[in-house]
């Protein structure tokens, strides 16, 4: 049985392998063929990934490769769908042009390595790095700051605030992960490595690159789970993950790719007998923190609790 995708075991495990994409291409092609035989058209909603690459660019590639016609167009569209679904998970690009760069690189036959820090792993690291009290305070400060910033920027979200107020918490974890990842890649790569990261990460990674504190850190060191904070219990661990879920506005523990929604608990704590109770605790706390956030978010500053 495949292990849950919490993090890669080695940097090259997330190098995009043609065989993986090919497997899903065949799957999509067979599905479309079967539908065509029945005279049906496969219903397909255009994903953000497909929108990212223009028709003009697709035509460019077709001409570049020297293939033309409807069949080539169909295959390219299928390829875009596979990348959109099986790599990008039909998500909009978190940084300008990132999804487009992925398509360009794959079309140009470059070896692409998906070097972002998995969101799930980031949560595991953060959950074991701070006390419940730390995270509760951080949550409260972000909620209060949200009220203040909303007056000037109505579209700002609490996760934007968290990144803005606490980069040393939410950004630094990713910066260290990616810097160590890049250094590991650079050791193995024959030539140069091109690194494409979000604009917010360029300077921090460049600054961290020569930091002596990370000089001896290897990739296998950063994928290890940090020890629990002393005194943590099942309840406090769940509450910390709930706070992070609400604060970062991404329900990572509901992803369909996880068999185990509580990988931060031990096998003794998370059993068939306890899992229903654990889920209940998680949802009750989630509702509580969401309500607090929404209440503070919608209360004018003058009426907010002191």
């Amino acid at each position, binding site marked *: *049985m*495949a*292990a849950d*995708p919490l993090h890669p075991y080695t940097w090259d*495990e*997330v*190098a*995009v*392998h*043609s*065989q*993986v*994409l*090919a*497997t*899903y*291409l*065949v799957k999509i092609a067979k599905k479309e063929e079967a539908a065509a035989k029945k005279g049906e058209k496969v219903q397909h909603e255009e994903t953000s990934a497909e929108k990212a690459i223009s028709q003009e660019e697709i035509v460019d590639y077709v001409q570049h*490769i020297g*293939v033309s016609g409807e069949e080539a167009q169909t*295959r390219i569209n299928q390829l875009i769908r596979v990348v959109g*679904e*099986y*790599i*990008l*998970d039909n998500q909009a690009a978190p*940084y300008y*042009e990132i999804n*487009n*760069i992925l398509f*360009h*690189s*794959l079309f*140009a*036959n*470059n*070896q*692409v*390595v*998906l070097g*972002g820090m*998995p*969101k799930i792993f980031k949560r595991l690291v953060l959950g074991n790095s701070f006390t419940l009290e730390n995270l509760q305070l951080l949550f409260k400060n972000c909620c209060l700051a949200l009220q203040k910033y909303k007056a000037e920027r109505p579209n700002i979200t609490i996760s934007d605030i968290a990144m803005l107020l606490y980069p040393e918490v939410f950004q630094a974890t990713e910066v260290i992960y*990616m810097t160590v*990842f890049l250094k590991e*890649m*650079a050791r193995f790569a*024959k*030539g*140069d*490595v091109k*690194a*494409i*990261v*979000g*604009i917010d*990460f360029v300077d921090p*990674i*460049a600054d961290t690159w020569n930091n002596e504190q990370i000089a001896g850190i290897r990739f296998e060191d950063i994928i290890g789970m940090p020890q629990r904070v002393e005194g943590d219990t099942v309840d406090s661990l769940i509450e910390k993950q709930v706070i992070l879920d609400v604060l970062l506005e991404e329900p990572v523990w509901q992803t369909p*790719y996880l068999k185990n929604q509580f990988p931060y608990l031990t096998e003794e704590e998370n059993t068939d007998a306890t899992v229903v109770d654990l889920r209940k605790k998680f949802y009750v706390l989630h509702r509580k923190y969401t309500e607090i956030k929404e209440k503070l978010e919608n209360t004018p500053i003058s009426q907010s609790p002191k």
Partner: protein
Amino acid sequence: MKPLPDTSEHQISTSVKELFSQTEESPIFIQIDPTRYLYSQRHIAAKTEDAAVKSEDMQVKFSLEGLRIIFHS
């Protein structure tokens, strides 16, 4: 390793094609969450007992030429 490229938004949008227009041996690191890919990759590896994913002989070139082979096989 060369210094990191200037990835200001304007720089990226105007240089994407130049950066990736030729096949290269060097890998390209892209800041994309690998969770969905890892799930698919491990799922296939588990099904095929790693054989297909690890075997060099099974490599299919990721291009339209490659796709032609896959679709015709």
